[in-house]
């Protein structure tokens, strides 16, 4: 069994009277894609931000890549890559310039074109972010998170608002990055996305983890509880039809 790269113990966070995170504990193994599923307001983003050193926890322990995040916020930031929900970047700078800018924020030197190549945006090197499509913006956002060769990549709802082609393209990219050995933590509303990408998922609701397991095991458990789908499962979904009719080629 591989070692844990993230260990979270009894994490708590309140905003005023609202308890956003109430005692979350989990581990992420090195090299896996770990998903956090849950409805809006479940506490996914808050948890992620505490792991990323962006928000202080009220109590609990977080260790990411060997660093105690509660004690050493800035040190962990150098070891992780972060894609936030809003993928806005500065206006008036090209992608290439932004990558150079971010590398100086991380205090590293990188070949900006190579980073852009990793996410398939070399052709857009001289373009500004505001002129990119939604999928390109998300890919660029991931590129900006890769400049410091992070050990863990955090992705907060990376495919929200993308068309099916762009989503599939982004999944390929995430699998690709993960295939090179990078641990990925991802939040999403889309169950197909979690099934497709994640080795294990945590189901979060009302600030607590309800269950953690691989998607297959979670399904098995549900069936074991005697669950039956009301309708007969179709051989194909409407999305399959859509992709068959419009093709899988990326549109942006």
């Amino acid at each position, binding site marked *: 069994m591989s070692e844990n790269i993230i260990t979270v113990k009894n994490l708590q966070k309140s905003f005023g009277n609202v308890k956003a995170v109430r005692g979350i504990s989990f581990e992420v193994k090195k090299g896996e894609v770990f998903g956090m599923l849950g409805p809006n307001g479940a506490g996914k983003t808050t948890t992620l931000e505490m792991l*990323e*050193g*962006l928000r202080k926890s009220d109590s609990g322990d977080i260790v990411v890549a060997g660093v105690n995040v509660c004690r050493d916020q*800035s*040190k962990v*930031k*150098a070891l992780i890559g*972060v894609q*936030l*929900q*809003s993928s*806005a*970047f*500065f*206006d*008036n*700078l090209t992608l290439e*310039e932004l990558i*150079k*800018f*971010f590398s*100086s*924020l*991380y*205090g590293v030197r990188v070949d900006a074109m190579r980073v852009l190549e990793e996410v398939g945006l070399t052709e857009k090197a001289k373009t500004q972010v505001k002129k990119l499509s939604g999928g390109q913006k998300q890919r660029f956002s991931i590129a*900006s998170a890769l400049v410091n060769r992070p050990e863990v990549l955090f992705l907060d709802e990376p495919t929200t608002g993308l068309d099916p082609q762009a989503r599939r393209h982004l999944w390929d990219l995430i699998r690709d990055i993960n295939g090179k050995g990078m641990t990925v933590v991802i939040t999403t509303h889309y169950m197909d996305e979690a099934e497709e990408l994640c080795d294990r998922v945590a189901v979060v609701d009302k600030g607590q983890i309800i269950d953690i397991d691989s998607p297959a095991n979670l399904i098995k458990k549900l069936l074991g509880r005697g669950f039956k789908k009301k309708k007969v499962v179709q051989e194909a979904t409407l999305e399959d039809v859509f992709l068959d009719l419009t093709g899988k080629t990326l549109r942006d």
Partner: protein
Amino acid sequence: MMNLRKIKKEILNTLTIAKYMILMFFREKTAIFFSLFIPVMLMSIFGVINTGGGVKFNVAVVDEANNQASQQIVTALQKVSVFTITTKSKDDALADLKNSKQTYALVIPEGFGANFAEYGAKQAELAKLPVSQQQAAVAALTVTPQRIDIYYDQSQNSSTISVGFTVFDKIFDGVTHQIARVPNFFEVKQLSISGNDLKYIDFLIPGLVAMSVMQLSIFAVTGQIVSWRERGILKRLLATPIHPGVIIFSQIVSRVIITFMQASILILLGILAFNLHVVGSLGLVVLLIVAGGLIFLSMGFALSGIASTQNTVAALANLFVFPQMFLSGIFFPRDAFPDWLLRASDYFPLTYFSDALRNVMVKGYTITQISGDLIGLAIWAVIMFVLAIKLFRWE
């Protein structure tokens, strides 16, 4: 050693970040417009209105005599710098006067200059008298004065009109002296002292520079920081290991550099196009611009902490900028203000800043002479800095 390397790295980082922030500024067309075009436009408008400088009279000359004597008068008039002389017929001249195209119409009637000959004849006789009698004869020497009619535009300010007449008197006196061969007993030398009678453009440009520093610092910081915060860009920056202070510091460095470029362009333009006289210490000018820049940048950071959207921050910024623009003596001296307003506006940061800048630039004041303004600026700097630290927020 380790620390030294770390410090060097932080400085390099700051400069790189500042470089990209400057780059962003130069690609923002509206920012360029507001920080350069507007002050240059104001300078041009006010400069052109006022560089004409002082009084100028249009004088129509109607030379009906057209002889040597009348030519002598016309030549003397043409040498007067405040007169623009045109020769016309009498009807045209009077018509022009009615249309206010001319301020004066000077009519030299036919037969003008007969007394010149009369005087010459008398003088020749005088010369024949014995020396002992000459003095008494000179005293008794009289000639019939010749008439010159001067029409003037009554719609003009009467004191302005009388200035013109004083000049005419002086010209005729001069011509009389020439004819009578009386030597000049006085020689007037014009010496100008840079006192309170600065040219308007000298008054205006330092104020415009100060105003531009204020606007650039406040608007650029408030607009940018709030928009970055709204769009989650600040949060993305905070997710990097860079110390938040470095981001603020590089923002300040880039702004100060941009402010310097702007101020240099405005001052250079003032010197080249509007004959601005910069006599003071350049070092002191630089110090003042840095001080002013820091005060208004801090103000910008404080304001962007109070407001959460771009619209509110713009409104708040205007609340601070507009009263100062008009009440800090940028476009006109504050002398005409009622007493209470004068005393209140004494304490505005822009008043300290523009007064000090003006006094150094065009009057050559030294650091001790502007110490009062410097103390005022220092107090404002402390207040703004504390406010900025207390109010600024990343989220």
